[in-house]
């Protein structure tokens, strides 16, 4: 039977794969592509902040406090301590993105692991894990983040930690429900019938079908995380001054809202642009990953 040939196979290259198809569909979605460009731009801006920023974001100047947008040497004005807003916004992307993305990434792994385990094993383990997760749902997420940060003390690390804890439950719940649904579909049984081990089934058939929806959901959480992180900083629980971070900048500039409203609104604008870009990116991924569409 094997006479049919390895030669003939030369014409059959390996399948381009799932992700190639996703990339192709994603690249045809103009809104998603714009969002991707913005996000990549923000990330590059954060990484190369020292090269991009026109001046030192920490240098204060009592003479140039609260300059309007377009002032000579201060293209986006100066804040309440006379620091260059443009530079501070550029440097601020570093901490803001870190605070926005890191908790979601960590929560993505932990939450998926918990949810997929609960969903695939089912039974008592599922009940135990998911009811524990439900306890966290009893608290509004903002309150939980504030309570945890408050208890742990202010600081970047504690802020990240509390945000991670906030995002594990929703991701675990999504992972659990998707896994439970996938586990009952016949291809899982078909895989068992063809001799696949439990580990192979989870790795290939469950993960392959479950990771897309969880990933999409998690990218949508990045914008929430960004806003929550900014909120923590605003309340003085996250990043401490004089570090540039958008939420914190919004807080310190709020007294200047009557003097220089446009300058005071700039950090909020950055938060808005970043979070909406992540949301649109997540929407684009959602439709690109749906191979049935």
């Amino acid at each position, binding site marked *: *039977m*094997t006479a*049919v*040939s*390895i030669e*003939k*196979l030369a*014409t*059959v290259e*390996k*399948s*381009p794969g*799932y992700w190639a198809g996703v990339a192709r569909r994603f690249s045809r979605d103009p809104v998603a592509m714009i969002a991707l460009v913005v996000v990549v731009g923000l990330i590059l801006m954060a990484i190369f902040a020292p090269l991009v920023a026109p001046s030192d974001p920490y240098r204060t100047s009592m003479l140039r406090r609260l300059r309007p947008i377009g002032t000579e040497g201060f293209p986006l004005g100066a804040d309440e301590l006379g620091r260059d807003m443009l530079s501070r916004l550029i440097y601020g992307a570093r901490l803001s993105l870190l605070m926005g993305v890191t908790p979601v990434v960590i929560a993505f792994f932990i939450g998926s692991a918990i949810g997929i385990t609960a969903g695939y094993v089912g*039974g008592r383990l599922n009940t135990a894990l998911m009811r524990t997760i439900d306890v966290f749902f009893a608290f509004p997420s903002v309150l939980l983040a504030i309570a945890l940060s408050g208890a742990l003390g202010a600081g970047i690390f504690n802020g990240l930690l509390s945000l991670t804890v906030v995002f594990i439950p929703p991701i675990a719940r999504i992972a659990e429900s998707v896994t439970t649904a996938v586990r009952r*579909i*016949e*291809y899982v*049984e*078909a*895989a*068992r*019938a*063809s*001799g*696949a*081990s439990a580990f*192979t089934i989870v790795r*290939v*058939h469950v993960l*392959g*079908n479950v990771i*897309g929806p969880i990933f999409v959901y998690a990218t949508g959480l990045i914008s929430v995380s960004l806003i929550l992180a900014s909120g923590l900083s605003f309340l003085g629980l996250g990043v401490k001054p004089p570090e540039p971070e958008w939420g914190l900048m919004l807080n310190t500039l709020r007294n200047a809202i009557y003097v220089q409203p446009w300058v005071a609104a700039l950090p909020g604008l950055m938060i808005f642009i970043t979070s909406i870009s992540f949301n649109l990116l997540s929407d684009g991924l959602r439709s690109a990953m749906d*191979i*049935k569409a």
Partner: protein
Amino acid sequence: MSTPLVDINNLHVRFHGQRTVHAVNGVNLTLAPGETLGVLGESGSGKSVTLKTLLRLLPENRTQIAGDVRVSGVDVMALSGKALANHRGGVVSMIFQDPMLALDPVYTIGEQISEGVMRHEGASSREAYARALEMLTRVRIPSPERRLKAYPHEMSGGMRQRAMIALALACKPKLLLADEPTTALDATVQIQILLLLRELQRELGMGMIFVTHDIGVAVEVSDRVAVMYAGQVVETGSVRDILRSPQHPYTRGLLAANLHGAQKGQRLQAIPGAPPPLDTAPVTCSFAPRCPVKAAGCDAGPPPNVTLAPGREVRCIHALGEAQGSAAN
């Protein structure tokens, strides 16, 4: 006959849950190598459960299985670990009812077929792809090279079922289990798939157990037929015997309920009543409450399993007289 390919002896399957279900209650089945057995019965008669037992696919923690299940002499219930993985897909393989659900939507057909080949035969991915291509050619999928790279949703229902068959046969199993493989397909595609299965079964010399609730389908593919009711085999015999001289009242009812003989304007024949709930194990004949020829002895105890001829068995009190009659002749 040497060792039968399948030998199921007094199989009992019980599911524990919120309520206990006695799904299978003492099933005996044998299948010779290269033979096709059609298992006929309505929903809940235990056909699929019996089939899944052969692959040990039932959830272990909620299922209680008693009895002897052997495939080419190997005790299936004793298999574990590597041996069980080899058994599944390598020795015994299964085709499912709905190919849309039984094929994984995020992998191409080629990837799914080659996955099993690599697992069972340790083949390289190139060899496995060559095998996948060969199998797609065998099940007569047009332009198989292209289909290798197609996702299940990109194919039609009949094509998907062909791909499913290719997937099941890729490792050349000795036994193919088909769980209503044509039910989800429309009528014109059904017959093509049936003919293909029959042909491949002969070509590869496999045994096949074909579960269906459609008598026409069972007749089309099978050498022998086993009729199941309430978790028991009530009648077995060759297709010819079952069609020409059904012995069990249930089999007669099934045949009478056939649409083909129906006259326009007349009510369709049906068996009155419904199958019994299987909360408790049957102690008498399960069919007695619906039986048109119920006798006094039917409620007294389990009906005898009467062997009329080799491979021809009926589980009915009335067959007793029949057997004695034919013995006297």
